[in-house]
């Protein structure tokens, strides 16, 4: 046995291990398929059209649902006539507040680890109306066409009051209770005074509009009751949370809800629990029939909250060399009294730059609207637009290269908390990216022209925090053929989670890829995981570390006196070549199959919980990156095209180079949308979304997307399970600023109000 073979054995961690006690043994050496290009394992099903999504399950006796939405934002239903709808062909039930069963309000996100409600408003319980688009009736019928037709036959009259507008309400903002659990205000020194005293400064206001997720799969759920048990085929990015929240609303035990969601057609923060789930389940109970609710595209805009508008102030004071004396990031967003997300756009300023003084603070105003919600990198997406645009503006003020300005302000510890960084190599990412992109001193704005096109380049920092949420667990079943099945209540909306975790688990247990199955998307699996906060890769890996330890202990107990492993403890062995070996003497090895066969066991099953995420308290943990882009702006029409984008990232270890690249690219493309076109048009007079369709809400299409170059440092984070800090959200960050900075370089026009449409450049 060579030393190289011995090195391939991944040690088991100690009993009370957490990442602060030492690196995950898996990251000490890179081997196996980690970092390789592995095609997603669910690919064949998806390209054949055989992956079943929520609206594609058929239940016996199932009926189809159609919804009616309010056309006012605030007031009450004054008159309601459902008789024509009830008499229409095929109609099984018309449910309104008059006959809806009593339901508890859905527990709101962040109020409990399993709460998944996007809003805690009661659903269809009285005649009051709280937002324009609130569901006022649900019709069940034998066919979708019958349900759709009957829904149009319901007569509704309203008494309405004018909705509060942003312009009125902004005079009386409030301070939110927290920013996703973090303090709202962070002060280091007196930043306002330091700003005044600084020899060089910028003090600017940036605005971003509302956005909607627009996953191509509209929200859908197929569900039915079996007595008091609820069976749900859902489109969910948090199966455990959805099941628990259903249970709270209907007053049943969590175990009485069985919710699965193996395939989800995009989420981006939007595939959480909204009112269609609840009226669907209530109507199903009332009708005694299983129900399928598929929201229309307009319905998704009416019932699923998007991203709030923001108005942000970024002020930076610097000395003549560009060193920050003051960094201020404050602003305002909109919310409702029924949700918990203020869009934490000031977070990047807290962690990214060395500064003598710092001030970040946010306020909100409450509007009569559907609760705004998490959308890819809530906060950092739009916050980096403001911060990284302002840094570009300061660089121009100082006549300094914007990369050099950022590097000059590279902090050696977290500027807001004083904590050490777990692993931070953003300067490496900047330098490597600049070389690859061919970053050169930029021409004066508006001076580089090719034919009718003005050319410009821009760059910006990308950043997103590391998260590992408490509550993760994993169940491993190992059978006597040596096949391992990992069950985790994880969610894969296309991030590649199931493939990535198969790679990680195979390496940890010393199994080939085909010997590992990752089962996910099922609320009956142990633990609680959420596809949010870019947390799943680390959270699942953390749970599997604990489960591996439990598995090895059980296997060693089963191994007989004759076993080469006899007498060894878990800490003394590791997984290798489909079995366990002693770390000190790898010739002492026995296969998993042999251990089980000797013990006469068909299989062993263990379940273990992840360690608490102590690393998040001990270290400042953030993924970072450098975004470079080149745009051209038509000198006549002022149309902007993005010609080149390079993302150079430092996100810890990259597990699967193929699916990771797609995560980065997907985020960057959403960032191009954020920069140039995405805008949910909200009529302040009626508080109604006026472009609830993919024809009028523009997302980047093929012609808008250049070939996107990527690179990464691939330096494992010693304090993250598997060394991976998460990559799902960082892609969108920094991109809008990089584009805006490039548009300025091309045209000399600084756009501080997204999206950068051509009218703003004329």
């Amino acid at each position, binding site marked *: 046995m060579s030393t190289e073979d011995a090195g391939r054995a991944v040690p088991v961690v100690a009993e009370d291990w957490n990442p602060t006690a030492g690196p995950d043994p898996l990251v000490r050496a890179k081997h196996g398929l980690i970092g390789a290009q592995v*095609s*997603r394992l*669910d*690919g*064949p*099903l*998806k*390209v*054949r*059209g*055989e*992956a*079943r*999504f929520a*609206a*594609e399950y*058929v239940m016996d006796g199932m009926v189809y649902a159609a919804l009616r939405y309010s056309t006012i934002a605030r007031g009450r239903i004054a008159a309601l006539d459902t008789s024509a709808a009830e008499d229409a062909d095929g109609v099984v039930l018309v449910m309104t507040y008059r006959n809806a069963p009593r339901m508890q309000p859905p527990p709101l996100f962040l109020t409990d680890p399993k709460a998944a409600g996007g809003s805690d408003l009661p659903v269809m319980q009285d005649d009051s109306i709280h937002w324009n688009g609130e569901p006022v009736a649900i019709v069940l019928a034998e*066919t*979708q*066409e019958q349900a759709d*037709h009957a829904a149009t036959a319901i007569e509704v009259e309203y008494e309405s009051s004018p909705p509060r507008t942003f312009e009125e309400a902004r005079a009386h903002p409030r301070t939110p209770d927290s920013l996703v659990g973090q303090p709202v205000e962070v002060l280091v020194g007196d930043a306002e005074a330091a700003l005044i005293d600084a020899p060089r400064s910028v003090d600017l206001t940036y605005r971003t509009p509302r956005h909607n997720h*627009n*996953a*191509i*799969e*509209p929200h859908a759920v197929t569900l039915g009751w079996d007595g008091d048990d609820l069976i749900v085929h859902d489109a969910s990015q948090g199966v455990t949370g959805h099941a628990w929240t259903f249970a709270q609303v209907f007053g049943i035990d969590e175990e009485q809800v069985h919710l699965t969601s193996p*395939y*989800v*057609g*995009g989420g*981006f923060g939007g595939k959480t629990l909204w009112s269609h789930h609840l009226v669907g389940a209530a109507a199903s109970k009332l009708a005694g029939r299983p129900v399928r609710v*598929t929201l*229309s*595209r307009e319905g998704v805009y009416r019932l699923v909250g998007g991203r709030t508008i923001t108005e942000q102030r970024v002020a930076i004071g610097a000395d003549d060399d560009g060193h920050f004396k003051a960094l201020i990031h404050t602003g305002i967003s909109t919310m409702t009294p029924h949700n918990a997300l203020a869009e934490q756009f000031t977070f990047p300023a807290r962690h990214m730059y060395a500064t003598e003084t710092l001030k970040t603070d946010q306020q909100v105003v409450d509007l009569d609207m559907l609760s705004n919600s998490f959308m890819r990198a809530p906060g950092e997406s739009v916050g980096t637009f403001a911060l990284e645009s302002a840094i570009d503006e300061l660089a121009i003020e100082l006549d300094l290269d914007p990369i050099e300005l950022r590097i000059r302000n590279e902090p050696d510890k977290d500027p807001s908390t004083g904590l050490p960084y777990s692993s931070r190599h953003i300067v490496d990412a900047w330098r490597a990216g600049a070389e690859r992109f061919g970053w050169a001193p930029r021409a004066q704005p508006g001076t580089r022209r090719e034919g009718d096109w003005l050319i410009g380049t821009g760059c910006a920092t990308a950043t997103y925090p590391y998260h590992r949420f408490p509550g993760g667990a994993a169940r491993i079943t190992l059978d006597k053929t040596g096949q391992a099945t990992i069950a985790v209540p994880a969610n894969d*909306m*296309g*991030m590649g989670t199931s493939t990535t975790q198969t790679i990680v688990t195979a390496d940890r247990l010393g199994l080939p890829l085909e010997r590992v199955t990752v089962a996910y998307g099922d609320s009956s699996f142990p633990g609680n995981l959420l596809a949010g906060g870019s947390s799943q890769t680390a959270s699942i890996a953390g749970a599997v570390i604990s489960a591996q330890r439990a598995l090895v202990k059980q296997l060693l107990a089963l191994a007989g006196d004759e076993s080469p492993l006899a007498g060894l403890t878990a800490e003394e062995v590791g997984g290798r070549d489909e079995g366990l070996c002693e770390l000190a003497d790898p010739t002492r090895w026995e296969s998993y199959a042999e251990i089980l066969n000797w013990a006469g066991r068909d299989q062993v099953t263990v379940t273990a919980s992840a360690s608490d995420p102590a690393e998040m308290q001990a270290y400042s943990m953030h993924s970072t990156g450098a975004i470079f882009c080149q745009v051209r702006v038509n000198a006549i029409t002022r149309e902007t095209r993005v010609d080149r984008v390079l993302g150079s990232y430092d996100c810890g270890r990259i597990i699967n180079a*193929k*699916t990771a*690249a*797609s*995560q980065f*690219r*997907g*985020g*960057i*493309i*959403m960032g191009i949308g954020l920069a140039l076109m995405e805008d949910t048009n909200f009529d302040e007079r009626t508080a109604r979304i006026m472009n609830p*369709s*993919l*024809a009028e809400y523009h*997302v*980047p*299409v*093929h*012609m*808008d*997307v250049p070939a*996107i170059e990527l690179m990464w440092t691939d330096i494992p984070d010693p304090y993250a399970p598997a060394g991976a800090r998460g990559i799902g959200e960082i*892609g969108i960050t920094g991109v809008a600023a990089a584009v805006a900075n490039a548009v300025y370089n091309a045209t000399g026009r600084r756009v501080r109000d997204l999206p950068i449409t051509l009218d703003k450049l004329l």
Partner: protein
Amino acid sequence: MPMMINGREASVPADPRVSLLDFLREHLELYGTKKGCNQGACGACTVLVDGERVLSCLALAVQYEGREVTTIEGLASGGALHPLQQAFIDDDGFQCGYCTPGQICSAVGMVEELRRGVPSHVTDDLEATEIEFSHDEVRERMSGNLCRCGAHNGIVEAINHVYAEERA
């Protein structure tokens, strides 16, 4: 006259309101064809009718008597994937997989349009009998198929790998 769907006969529905998309999904349980917007804006429902790409959400099933419809389920022959299906896997031309059947069907129809010389917004020579395969032609012609996961690079690479290289 019956409709032929993936080589099998199907009788059109009695309810004339049923779209071709809902007919495929709800009547025949061919759920591979996806509903993304139901208003012709996203391309997820693209199928091939007599070889041409059609948005099945904007088509009424009763109009398609006697026509030959191919859905994503009909592209693979037996166990073997269509070369474009395999290329989508190899080039990671999708993430969630929801727009994927529409992208693949659309690309198959799009390539035929190039061969027939059907011009696009970016075509320079409007009289060409066959349009040259190019990065811009592919991107322009695929722009009716939205992908929100941002797999555009992989999709275009997959199409290039199968069709541009086939022509070279």
